């Protein structure tokens, strides 16, 4: 079978399967080419790991995918951290943080990280 295109759905499925992610938000930040994504990934596998180790886990799980796309950004949280943030949102006017948009212009990436 020919290698299929990387989409929000294929990335989400890969993260659920390979990192047992309990919640995944993927956002296209390409503004056209469809090959730049930012993500919020919730997985119990992040528990007890530093931010760097969490990102490395994701990079390894998505090695082939990230190599194919133009830009990739991620926020990695444990289910507990995510629940805590959600609770915070309910008790204040602050919104829960979704996928990181730093480095983008209103959610559109300029340039690539590849």
């Amino acid at each position, binding site marked *: 079978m020919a290698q299929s295109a990387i989409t929000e759905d294929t990335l989400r499925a890969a993260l659920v399967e390979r990192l047992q992610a309990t919640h995944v938000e993927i956002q296209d930040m390409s503004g056209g080419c469809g090959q730049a994504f930012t993500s919020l990934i919730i997985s119990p596998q992040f528990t007890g790991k530093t*931010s*760097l180790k969490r*990102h*490395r886990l994701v*990079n390894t799980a998505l090695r082939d995918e990230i190599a194919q796309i133009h*830009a990739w*950004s991620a926020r990695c949280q444990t289910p507990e951290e995510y629940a805590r943030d959600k609770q915070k949102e309910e008790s204040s006017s602050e919104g829960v943080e979704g996928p*990181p948009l730093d*480095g983008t212009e209103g959610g559109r990436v300029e340039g690539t990280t*590849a």
Partner: protein
Amino acid sequence: MFSRTVFQATRQAARRPSPFLTPFSLAPSSVSQRRLLSDVVRQAIDKAVSSAPVVLFMKGTPETPQCGFSRASIQVLGLQGVNPEKFAAYNVLEDQELRNGIKEYSDWPTIPQLYVDKEFVGGCDIIVSMHQSGELAKMLEEKGVVVKEEGSNESKPE
């Protein structure tokens, strides 16, 4: 504004002879194919990583970043007040071997990449989140790489 200090740093870094010029142009093309990262390239990157306490591998220059993620990262280092004398930036767009080599060297698939005291810190997501949490300010201060400004508390969230 602090951001200016980082910009000046790279002007200095840019004036320095690039550690990549010689090694990369001498890199033999027939190196064992199984090893993607040749010893020559690895040594050149070793040298770059050790060239200053704070080293950023980025797309473009601090004055003219060629990518939003590199721009965000350089802005954070500027806001943190990183001492230009302790900072060097390398433009991966100037050298394809550096661009590919640094990814394998750090086992990290994207650019930018930040090193502090020869240790890999992370890419843009990590730099920004450490900036927001105050971890970055703490680390940079402990490493003694920020410009001390009297009466300034702005690099210390928390």
